[in-house]
C-alpha cells in the first residue's frame, strides 16, 4: 500500500493537530537567531528589507500554499498598506503605530470587499482577477489620485520619533521588523495548525468534500483571504516605514512574480518554506543582479526548472531528507523502490 495514503488515513477523530508545546517557541528562537546571524554578514538595512519581504511571503503562502489560490496581484494589499500609512504620515503626522494599524486595517478592508468577489473563483480565474484588481489599484494611485499621491514620483513619509524609538535608526527598524516577523510567524503557526488551518488545507485538496461535510467553505476562504491581505498590508506599512518613501512601484503588477518565485523556491504550503524562499529570493535579486545582467532571463529559466523538476522547493527537499532518516531502517528500501 502507498505509505502516503496510510499516513493520511491514520488520525483518530480526537487527535490533537497542534505541535507539541514549546516547539513553536523553539522555532521562533531559531528564526530570530537566523536573522541575527545574517545581520553581520550582510548590511543591517538589507536584512530589514529581507524580513519585510518574508512577512509578505508568509501572507502570500497562506493564500497560495495553504489555500491553493495563486494570486498574481497580492502586491495590491501591500501597496494599499504602504499608501495609507504614507498618506497618514504625510498629511496628518499621526503616531507611527496608529499609521501602521490603519494601513493594515485599510488593506484588510480592501481584502474584505474584494474577497467577496475573488473567493468565489478558483484557479486561473482567481489569478487573473487578482491581476486585474492590482492593475486597477496601480492605475488609481498613478493617475486619478495624482494630486494626493503625487503620481509616479511618489512622496516622502518621515516618521516622527516616539519616546526613545528613533525610526531613522537602522537598529530600531531591524528590531521592530524582527519582532513583527516573529509575531506574524507565531500567529500563522497557530492559525495553520488549528482546526481552522486544517480545514483551509482540506479546501485546497477538495473543496466539494469539505462542503459536503457541512462547512460553509465560502466563509472560511473569505476569512483566509482577509487575513492574508491584512498581513500583506502590514508588510506594506513596514516597507514605507523602512524606506520613508512611497511610490507606485510598491504595487507594480510586474513585481508580483517575485513573491510567487520566493514561495515556490522555498516550498509552498509551509511557513518555513516561505521564510527560506523569501531570503533566497532577496539574496538572488540583491546580489545576483549585480553580476548577471540578464536578470529576468535567469528568473524565467529558474521558474521553469522549479515548475518541471523542483516542485517541493528547498524546504520540501530538506523535509524529505529528514523523513528518510527518521524512518526505521526496514522502511527505507521500500521508499527507494517507490521513487
Amino acid at each position, binding site marked *: 500500500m502507498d505509505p502516503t495514503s496510510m499516513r493520511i488515513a491514520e488520525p483518530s477523530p480526537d487527535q490533537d493537530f497542534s505541535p507539541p508545546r514549546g516547539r513553536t517557541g523553539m522555532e521562533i528562537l531559531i528564526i530570530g537567531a537566523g536573522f541575527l546571524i545574517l545581520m553581520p554578514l550582510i548590511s543591517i538595512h538589507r536584512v530589514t528589507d529581507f524580513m519585510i519581504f518574508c512577512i509578505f511571503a508568509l501572507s502570500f503562502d497562506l493564500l*497560495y500554499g495553504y489555500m*491553493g489560490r*495563486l494570486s*498574481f496581484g497580492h502586491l495590491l494589499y501591500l501597496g494599499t498598506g504602504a499608501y495609507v500609512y504614507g498618506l497618514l504620515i504625510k498629511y496628518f503626522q499621526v503616531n507611527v503605530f496608529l499609521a501602521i494599524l490603519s494601513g493594515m486595517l485599510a488593506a484588510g478592508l480592501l481584502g474584505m470587499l474584494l474577497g467577496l*468577489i475573488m473567493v*468565489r*473563483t*478558483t*484557479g*486561473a*480565474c482567481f*489569478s*487573473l*482577477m487578482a*491581476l*486585474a*484588481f492590482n*492593475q*486597477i489599484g496601480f*492605475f*488609481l494611485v498613478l*493617475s*486619478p489620485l495624482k494630486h494626493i499621491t503625487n503620481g509616479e514620483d511618489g512622496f516622502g513619509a518621515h516618521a516622527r520619533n516616539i519616546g526613545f524609538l528613533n525610526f531613522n535608526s537602522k537598529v530600531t527598524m531591524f528590531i521592530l521588523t524582527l519582532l513583527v516577523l516573529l509575531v506574524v510567524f507565531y500567529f500563522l503557526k497557530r492559525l495553520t495548525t488549528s482546526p481552522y488551518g486544517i480545514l483551509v488545507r482540506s479546501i485546497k485538496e477538495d473543496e466539494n468534500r469539505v462542503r459536503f461535510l457541512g462547512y460553509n467553505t465560502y466563509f472560511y476562504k473569505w476569512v483566509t483571504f482577509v487575513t492574508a491581505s491584512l498581513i500583506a498590508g502590514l508588510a506594506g506599512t513596514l516597507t514605507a516605514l523602512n524606506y520613508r518613501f512611497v511610490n507606485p512601484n510598491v504595487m507594480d*503588477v*510586474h513585481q508580483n*512574480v517575485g513573491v*510567487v518565485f520566493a514561495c*515556490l523556491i522555498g516550498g509552498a504550503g509551509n511557513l518555513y518554506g516561505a521564510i527560506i524562499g523569501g531570503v533566497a529570493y532577496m539574496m538572488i535579486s540583491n546580489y545576483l543582479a549585480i553580476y548577471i545582467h*540578464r*536578470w*529576468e*532571463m535567469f*528568473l*524565467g*529559466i529558474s*521558474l*521553469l526548472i*522549479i*515548475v*518541471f523538476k523542483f*516542485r517541493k522547493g528547498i524546504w520540501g527537499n530538506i523535509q524529505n531528507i529528514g523523513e528518510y532518516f527518521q524512518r526505521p531502517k526496514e522502511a527505507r528500501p521500500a521508499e527507494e523502490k517507490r521513487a
Partner: protein
Amino acid sequence: MLLTIFYGFSIGAILYFISIGLSLTFGTMRVINFAHTLTYSIGVYVLITCIPLMKGNFFPAAIMAILAVIPISYVIERFVIRRLYGESLDYTFIATFAITLMGVDTIKWVWGVNPLPLSAPLGTYIEFWGMTFPVYRIIIFAIAIVLFLALELFFRKTILGKIVVAALEDKDGVRCLGVRVDKYFSLMFILGSALAALGGVLYAPISAVHPYMGLSVLLLAFAVVIVGGMGNLRGTFISAFSLGMVMAITARYWSQGAETMVFIVMAIVLIFRPIDI
C-alpha cells in the same frame, strides 16, 4: 459619437485577434497561456526590423513578422506547453509567465529597452457624413470581419476545424475516436500565436512599442476571454467588440480610465457568472 463607435469597432477587432488564440488554448489544452504576450510583442519587433529591409513597405514586413512568430510559437508549444497537459492550472500559469519573462528579456537584449517609433502605414483619411475616418482603422475592422467569417467557415466546414471544435467539447471523446488531438492542438496554438502577432502588427502603429507592451494588452485579452467564455469562439467575438466599445466610450469621456473600465466590466460579469476552471 459616431466616430467613437467606429474607434470602438477597431479596438474590438484588435482585441478579437489577440484573444482568439488565448480562447483556443484555454478551451482545448486547459493551459493559461501567458506567453501569448510574447508572440504579440515579438511580432511587432520583427515588423520594426523588417520595414527598412522591405524599403518601407508595411504589408510585406507585416507578413514576415507573422511568419517569424510561427517557429517561435512551435518551440514554445513543443517544449513547454506540451509538458503542461493535465497539470494544475497554477503551474501552467507560472511556466508560461516564465517564458514571457525570458522573452521580454530577449527583446530588451536585442532591441533595447527604449520605446521605438512606428507610424501608421496609411495616414490618409476619408470624409464621410462630415466626419473624418482614418483609413487604417477601417482596414483593421475589415480584416477582423473577414477573419471572423474565415474562422467560422474553418471551424464548421473543414475536418481540421471540426476536430478542434469537438475537442473543445470533449477532448477524451475525440481521442477515443483515434484522433491524435495533440497534433491539432499544436496547430491551433501556432494559429493562435500567429493571430496574436497579426493583432500586434496592426495595433502597434496606433499604440506604443516597448518591451512590456504585451502585458497590458494581454490583460485586456484575458478579460475578453473571461467575459466571452473559455473556448467559446463566438462568445469571444461578441465580447471583444463589446469590450472594445466600452473602452472607446470610456476613453471619450475619461481617457485614462479606458482600460480600467474593462476590468470593472469583467469583475461585474464574474460576480454574476463565476467560472470554474
